[in-house]
């Protein structure tokens, strides 16, 4: 069973969202996603300042066997990217909800469209995890 922290929000495409104290949002991919991909070898992140629409593909996570797009969970603009991933993509495998964060963003939308931890767990069950 993959790890799904209860205090985060999720998307059907296996991204997680954390609200930071200063109101920014931190985004990454879930434990299930990193497990499915395998050892990550490369991560492509956007430039800070880029505006994103909800569901827009903004980067790529690449392993030996797969390269997947990552999608923006909300509309907003990128305020920071995790530059450590350039030399250590394995951070995502080791700590997908912590040091493996992908981008931080500012968004005006509500988080209402995002899934709770319980809902995401149900998504994984339906997929036959």
């Amino acid at each position: 069973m993959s790890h799904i922290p209860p205090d985060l929000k999720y998307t059907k495409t296996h991204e997680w969202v954390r609200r930071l104290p200063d109101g920014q949002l931190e985004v990454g991919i879930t434990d299930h996603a990193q497990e499915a991909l395998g050892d990550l070898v490369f991560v492509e992140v956007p430039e800070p300042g880029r505006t994103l629409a909800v569901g827009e593909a903004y980067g790529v996570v690449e392993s030996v066997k797969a390269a997947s797009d990552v999608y923006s969970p909300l509309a907003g603009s990128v305020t920071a990217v995790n530059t450590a991933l350039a030399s250590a993509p394995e951070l995502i495998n080791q700590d997908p909800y912590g040091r493996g964060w992908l981008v931080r963003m500012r968004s005006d939308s509500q988080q209402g469209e995002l899934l709770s931890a319980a809902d995401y767990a149900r998504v994984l069950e339906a997929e036959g995890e």
Partner: protein
Amino acid sequence: MAFIPHTPEDVAQMLAAIGVERIEQLFDEIPPALTIGALSEVPEALNEMEIGRLMSERAQLDGRALCFIGAGAYEHHIPAAVWALATRGEYYSAYTPYQAEASQGTLQTIYEFQTMIASLAGLEVANASLYDGASGFAEACLMAVRINRKSRSKRILVARSLHPHYRRVARATVGNQGLTLEEIPYLADCGRTSLEALAAHEGEDIAAIAIQQPNFFGVLEDVDALSSWARARGIAVIAVVNPTSLALLKPPGEWAGRADIAVGEGQPLGVPLSSGGPYFGFMASRLEHVRQMPGRIVGRTLDATGRPGFTLTLQAREQHIRRGKATSNICTNQGLAVTAATIYMSLMGARGLERVAAASHARTHELVDALTRVGGVSRAFEAPFFHECVLTLDRPAGPVLAALAGRGILGGFDLASDYPELGHALSVCATETKTARDIETYAAALAEALRPARAA
């Protein structure tokens, strides 16, 4: 039965193991209406002796003319060792090296090839090859659009002096993805791409420019000025280059506006003319673009005991993994041709390749001198040229070439349909394979072919 080893006893035992009585039963899932009878339109089988004779007769029919055509395919001497080694069964009948442990020969050969090509091009990385120079150019256009960080532009400016077939192949390949290829004209006096015409695109959103060096006319372009113009505006530079010439000429990685991508036709490196194929396209690029490079790439790594070994890498970009989002649909490289080229480059080394280039340069100049001494023949362009040259005649080139062909001389490539603005023009080429006597033979035959109209 050709190449099928089964005896009737084998067949009987096999059918018994399967649990059927006749081979036809193995096809019982196929709707009977679809099953055909005999292939009556296909001729009866020939044994090896018979097909050998037929092929010899046809080959002799085609003969071997004295060839002075370049235009994208070049006759160079191929050392005997190249194909003696490349046709070894272990290279010839091996598959794509997906099981790396069983393919170290092929993989290491490709790694060595990548090293040589990257160095020839003056860039950091190269792939395991593409189908040919023309499709390689099409792939370079697609790659240039992908690497464009500053915009989504799909406009590529392409020199008109770039090989006409390459431009057509690129259009056929990239048109469906919305890319446009716009021509930049050349200057009529020197045959070089017009920097002024390029500069007229100032301020426009362009993804890349594409320059050939030497260009299709054999003329040497001002690559520094053209590439600098693009570089200063954040426009990618695609260089289409001849690999033999890179032994002498400044490579794309050292142009003043350093090229992003270099492609070209690898045939001159040990691959026979063979009526156009199989050849191979090479591609090299800056390291920062490697993940956008199509085709296969070999990397060196370690095995479970820490020994070095080779494997296909960066495959996540390729069709079998990314499927609809692949960088390209390309599934193969030109394995055997690449093997031959790697052996050729190993036998030649830098000095041997330089000799080939210098000799080709010298012979072409001698050819042009000899031919322009014939009345009615002149050079089309006043400019330094390398390895091939455009001449203009006092009458259409077509019938002249036909007359020469009748005497066993392939005099050059008629430019009338691709470059009508040049008038009666033809492209000629002489490589290190041509002797002084060959050149004399051509000049004499040309003089005779042009004589009747002049006497009138």
